[in-house]
């Protein structure tokens, strides 16, 4: 480890520039959080009026009366949780099979799943919509959850993790009479908690913020998630800042809290996998 260096002129400039950018990056978020606490009608672009005067939590009630923001939050929570738990369960099973079991067609399956990584959702919105319409899954939770469960990245991350579990450990449990299910549940899963956490955190963040597919597949206001509902709400209230900001805060606080708690893991996860949301 290198020590903190001596303060030269260059370092002073570095400090100033780095902290100015940190301020610029944080300020919009801070502005949003504070604006949501101002009485409706406050001209929040006049900063002296944002940071002084009265603060109130009433907006969180008012915004719910103006638009079904709490229904959208509930939908977001249901969909993101289902996607997260579904992804962890499905990908850890599939990855275990690909990594630790011998079967006919393993190479080909692995190849097809890896190739699936290169299909962006943007390229399949038309046929996916047609398929979902035929299955009567538009405007349903299942319709929102299922496409996210198809993402291959989790399988590849979990497989890389299982690959690093020594075969001797597995063989030992075979000698103890463990069947494939027990080997997965009792040997492999306990050793891959950190990878499962990485997959889970990322999946949750992406599902919580997912825009394109919910935007296309949900037309009923009651089934909207926050990322789809908020722009619509804001579009109808462009002259009034406070309530749209409040809705945005409701959508952002869970993601920000998850981030602050898990920031180390999130950044390690990116490093490990290079997943871009």
């Amino acid at each position, binding site marked *: 480890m290198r*020590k903190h*260096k001596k303060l030269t002129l260059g*370092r002073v400039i570095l400090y100033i520039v*780095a902290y100015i*950018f*940190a301020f610029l*990056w*944080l300020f*919009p978020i801070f502005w949003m959080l504070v604006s949501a606490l101002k009485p409706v009608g406050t001209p929040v*672009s006049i900063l002296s009026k944002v940071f002084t005067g009265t603060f109130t939590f009433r907006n969180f009630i008012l915004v719910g009366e103006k638009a079904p923001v709490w229904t959208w939050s509930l939908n977001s929570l249901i969909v993101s949780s289902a996607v997260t738990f579904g992804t962890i369960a*499905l990908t850890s*099973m*599939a990855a275990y*099979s*690909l990594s630790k079991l*011998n*079967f006919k067609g*393993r190479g080909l*399956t692995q190849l097809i799943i890896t190739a699936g990584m*290169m*299909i*962006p959702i*943007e*390229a*399949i*919105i*038309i*046929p996916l*919509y*047609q*398929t979902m319409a035929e299955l009567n899954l538009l405007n349903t939770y299942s319709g929102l959850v*299922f496409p996210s469960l*198809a*993402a*291959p990245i989790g399988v590849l991350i979990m497989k890389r993790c299982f690959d690093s579990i020594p075969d001797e450990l597995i063989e030992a449990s075979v000698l103890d009479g463990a069947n*494939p299910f027990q080997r997965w549940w009792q040997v492999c899963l306990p050793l891959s908690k950190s990878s499962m956490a990485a997959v889970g955190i990322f999946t949750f963040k992406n599902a919580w913020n997912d*825009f*394109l597919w919910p935007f296309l597949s949900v037309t009923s206001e009651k089934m909207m998630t*926050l990322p789809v509902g*908020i*722009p619509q709400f804001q579009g109808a209230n*462009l*002259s009034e*800042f406070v309530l749209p*900001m409040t809705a*945005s805060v409701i*959508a*952002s606080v869970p*993601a*920000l809290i*998850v*981030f*602050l708690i898990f*920031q180390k893991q*999130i*950044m390690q996860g*990116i*490093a490990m996998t*290079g997943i*871009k949301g």
Partner: protein
Amino acid sequence: MKGATNSERLKNIIKENIAAWLFLIPYLGFFICFLLFPILRGMYVSLFDAALGRESIFVGLENYVTIFKDKAFWQSLFNTLFFVIISTPAIVLVGFVFAIFVNSKLKGTTFLRVSYFASYVLSMAVVTGLWIFIYQPYTGLLSVITNALGLGEIYWLNTKWLVWFAILVTTIWWTVGFNMVLFLVGLQDIPDEIYEAAEIDGANSRQILFRITIPLLRDTTVLVILLQTISSFKLFGQTYLMAGGGPGTHTRTLVHYIYETGFTNRRMGLAAAMSVAFFVVVLLVSLLQNKVFAKK
């Protein structure tokens, strides 16, 4: 296994095959239905004059001829490429600079890292909503500054080219944290001894940056550039939500045009053909990326 007879061994192989497929099928079901089948179906639909709720007519490659002759398609491709070209160097460079800041052993490193990265966890809807309020003339946050500077009201999101600048700034603010983290990992892989040796040899910080840091980050940089290129190609939310693809069709991107053709104008076959074209472009970049990854 020792002592296992042939028939026992065969039984075990069959058992393992069955177990393997049982583990795979739940995931594969979703993968096939909602990823693999749609992409193949998209290619198939692109050969038809198809719309929701009526019979499709086989037209062969006619949809591809149509989009080839469609000026609006080329414009949306141009808009997308334009954004790729302006955004990729900008976001990669800012990400690199932020990574250098965080890696410079300043006091408050964690604070800096968290500050640069926090916006990345916000949803696109929140980010665009926030920046609409920043850019909005008369009542927006920037309006206060431009008025103080005597520039008057600027219609950031309704002025050609200026709108691209506004969207670029928004996108940098939103996503640069991701690139920063990738660069940071690359930087931390460079052993301290190399820097120490360079310092003993009397290298100044500029020489260290250009002769050591940048060359050693080559692989990371290539990876970041490719990921950023793909991500910029998919641009839709920012331009759609902030500018509606406007002014006019000035910021209508490829994905936006696919959406309009398929969902607004209900020409599914044509939109599917555009999707195939879009997919091919993204695929080429991904293949390049895999090649780089494989080398690592």
